[in-house]
């Protein structure tokens, strides 16, 4: 099980072997929508890393210190989504007041993140694998770093493909999916790296 593995393995597993975008298929809406240029992909990627790590630690604490002692595990879906949504709002306010430069860099991506399934998924997966707090921290960092990595590579390839001669009906989104398929094929190669 993942909760007995060492931290480095947890990171690699979340980052490469079970890459959230290409192997687990989460966060695809923003993956396809935003990755048309590199600059906004980098912004989105970093914002996701930032929010995921913090929001996952928070929801881990809420689950283990609030829901488990009162036997309210069935409320976890509602609780997590509310925790994440209110946390993103809160963080947006703090960043706008204290770090205006960072706020300008994140721009519209911060509020958009609330509906990004990467965050909720890594909160759920951390609970499902019964990880400890430190493991959960590393796990959520691995997942969000995998997202960041994937979306930046994808955006660079997609900028190149704009000028390539491709069939008329494949222009736009379809070719992006074929591209994602090829990248996913490459990521499947990491499967032999470790035995779970």
């Amino acid at each position, binding site marked *: 099980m993942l909760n007995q593995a060492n931290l480095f393995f947890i990171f690699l597993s979340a980052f490469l072997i079970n890459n959230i975008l290409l192997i687990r298929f*989460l966060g695809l809406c923003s993956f396809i929508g935003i990755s048309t240029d590199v600059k906004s992909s980098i912004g989105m990627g970093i914002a996701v890393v930032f929010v995921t790590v913090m929001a996952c630690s928070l929801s881990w604490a809420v689950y283990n210190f609030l829901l488990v002692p009162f036997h309210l595990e069935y409320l976890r879906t*509602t609780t997590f989504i509310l925790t994440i*949504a209110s946390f993103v709002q809160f963080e947006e306010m703090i960043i706008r007041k204290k770090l205006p430069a960072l706020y300008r860099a994140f721009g519209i991506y911060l509020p958009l993140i609330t509906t990004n399934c990467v965050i*909720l998924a890594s909160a759920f997966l951390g609970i499902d694998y019964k990880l400890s707090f430190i493991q959960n921290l590393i796990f959520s960092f691995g997942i969000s770093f995998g997202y960041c990595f994937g979306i930046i590579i994808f955006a660079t390839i997609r900028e190149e493909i704009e000028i390539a001669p491709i069939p008329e009906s494949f222009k736009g989104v379809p070719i992006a*999916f074929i591209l994602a*398929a090829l990248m996913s094929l490459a990521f499947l190669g990491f499967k032999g790296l470790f035995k779970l």
Partner: protein
Amino acid sequence: MELENFWRKLKMENKRLIDFKVFLNGIWRENPILFIMLGLCPTLAVSGSVRDALGMGIAVIFVLTGSNFVVSLIRKIVPNHVRIPVFIVVIATFVTITDYILAAYSPQIHKNLGVYLPLIVVNCIILGRAEGFASKNNVFNSILDGLGMGIGFTLIIFIISSVREILGNGTFMGRNIFGSNFEPFLIMIMPPGAFFVIGFLIALKQKIEKGSKKC
């Protein structure tokens, strides 16, 4: 008396109480996956076998219809600036109900869907329809819209999972269809297969659209 006023108001707004066009919209003209590109994550993730895909489709139909119904009932009493959190709580409630019903009645499908089942709550189709349709329309039309969108979603996920299961495993709904000499395309059942199939499906849709424009 009140009912009469209601009918008159409806006539003045020139809206039909039950409009079947709304239902058909979801299936083709505004199909959530092909045309608006929403709700891609569960579509790709659970389309490895037809049975799981149908389970997912039914769960989405239930959540979409239920949340559209409740949202359109409460649309007039919810203050405008807290509407999104309220909608999310409504959706999360329906997702929790679905999660526990599936766990009780078909534990195998519940196990296969895994984390993707609670993640219906962030499926953009559902919040999109609650915000874009149910918060502006009456109860009957909202239910129809939920059903239409849900069936449109299920249709696409059914097509994708059929292609993947038949090519990748040589089976359909668990039944062998090619006999023992068939060498399955393993790639189709693995993650890249899902991206290939949806890429070709959207390309086909663009081809059909271009073809009909020429005529």
